[in-house]
């Protein structure tokens, strides 16, 4: 895996590594991907209509609103402000 691909994966994963651990992680990923590459050897095509895990429209949830949670309970694992989640300064927003 080249550096650019690894960097791209880090951006997608919202993770970062220092130089040393980046190198180790990349090597480990290379090894794992070599194992994953096995799937390339088999000639199969995927057809999603054959999964047979669909549910009928009639079985879907009926549209009925229920009592929501209190903000106090919902936000009990963070330090809210005005019942809102607090997000640090965002770059390039109004």
């Amino acid at each position, binding site marked *: 895996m080249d550096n650019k*691909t690894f960097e*791209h*994966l*880090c951006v*997608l*994963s*919202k*993770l*970062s590594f220092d130089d040393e651990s980046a190198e180790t*992680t990349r090597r*480990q*990923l290379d*090894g*794992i*991907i070599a*194992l*994953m*590459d*096995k*799937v*390339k*050897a*088999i000639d*199969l*095509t*995927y*057809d*999603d209509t*054959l*999964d047979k895990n669909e*549910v009928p429209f009639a*079985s879907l*949830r009926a549209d009925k609103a229920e009592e929501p*949670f209190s903000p106090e*309970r*919902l936000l*009990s*694992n*963070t330090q809210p402000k005005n019942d809102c*989640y*607090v*997000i*640090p*300064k*965002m*770059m390039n927003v109004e």
Partner: protein
Amino acid sequence: MELTKLSIKSMREKLVSREITSAELLASFSERKDEYFAYVTQTSDLAVESAQVADLRIAAGENAPLLGIPGAVKDNICTDGIKTTCASKMLADFIPPYDADVVQRLKQSGYVLTGKTNMDEFAMGSSSQTSVFGGVKNPYDVTRVPGGSSGGSAAVVAARLAPFALGSDTGGSIRQPASFCGVTGIKPTYGRVSRYGLVAFASSLDQIGVFTKTAADSAEVLNVISGYDKRDATSANVPTPDFTSYLNRDVRGLRIALPDEYFGDTVGDDVRTAVLNAAKYFEESGATLVPCSMKVFDYAVSAYYLLACAEAASNLSRFDGVKYGLRGEGATYEQRIVDSRNKGFGAEVKRRILLGNYALSSGYYDAYYRKAQALRQEIIKEYNDVFTKADIILTPTAPEPAFKIGSSENDPIKMFLADICTVMANIAYLPGINTTCGYTDDGLPIGMSLIGKRFDEGGIIGAADFFERNFRRKDIP
């Protein structure tokens, strides 16, 4: 009387007849010390309280299936007001404001929660050593791993710290630790038990199941936690049979398939011998052994990790240090989120997130993720073929018995390959049960797996129960 060795059924009988109280029963388990790091959180005070409440309800003539029975819950299953950490730094302080569906059902049935069990971080691993709180030890040999990811639950039952424990199984995370710890572990059919409240690792593979001393006990607990849940769209709207009705049967006429691939070089000699001996015993008892072949076996681990990691990468994106969980540092949102994830996740979790994003990212999707989906269809097809000739499938649960702590859990590829015997059942949504079929010369348990047709937990519980009634287990003192 050694209360901890009783079956759940006899515990209930003694509770109902007032021969013992729930408080006494709880005490007999809690007197035994957790020397294995099996629990992340022990809810001792709450347990004493719940046991007292259970005793009052029993005295009032109430009868619920697990009323007064202690039990543990894996720490990736949400418990209202009780820390649910997934053994991760990310959720070390997370207290869910809701119960998982299984926890609600257990509460309604009157169970007594003993604690939340230790595990591999976010259920990613086969050793229970990636827990941020420290690895779990195998009660049969504390220098060895208990298996994983539900190693804490397996150890709790093996060490008789509780008569049952819930676990979750994504690629073998119940059956493999059950085999390493010499207990019975069942992963039900995907959809049999609601996943609502189970912190997702890989949503299409995850399934909550049960650890118990015996298949008979697992039937009691499975009866309680099974059933349709309108909050989980993948839970199956099918009736729950009484699983205890499958107990105490024989195996005459039962057709048992032995796929060649599971008995090749990938498994160790003592494992192969023990499982084949069990097969022979079934045959002598009137079952028919059906040789068969599953050609997709060689691709299963790769397909499994592609599917599981892709789903995991997406499922674990919500941990951003804002709504809950570890709050990293950084002046901007972008810095905060990366710092929270860098600090909150361990190495194995990070590797799987990276791998999952690789399999899904543009340019790689068709070669990896889509191919894995195609393999999934192929694996299901091969199982369907086998099930035209056989009622259940018998395989080893793991290639080797419990390995030494520190020996291979840091080699990611070796760890992936160790799941080879268990992942196919998850890929095909099938139920599987592990029960002990032998011991190594060192006294380590060896497990075998029975795989059933979709929603035929009864069939595999019945076969496992038959075997257990005729096999002598070596209990932990």
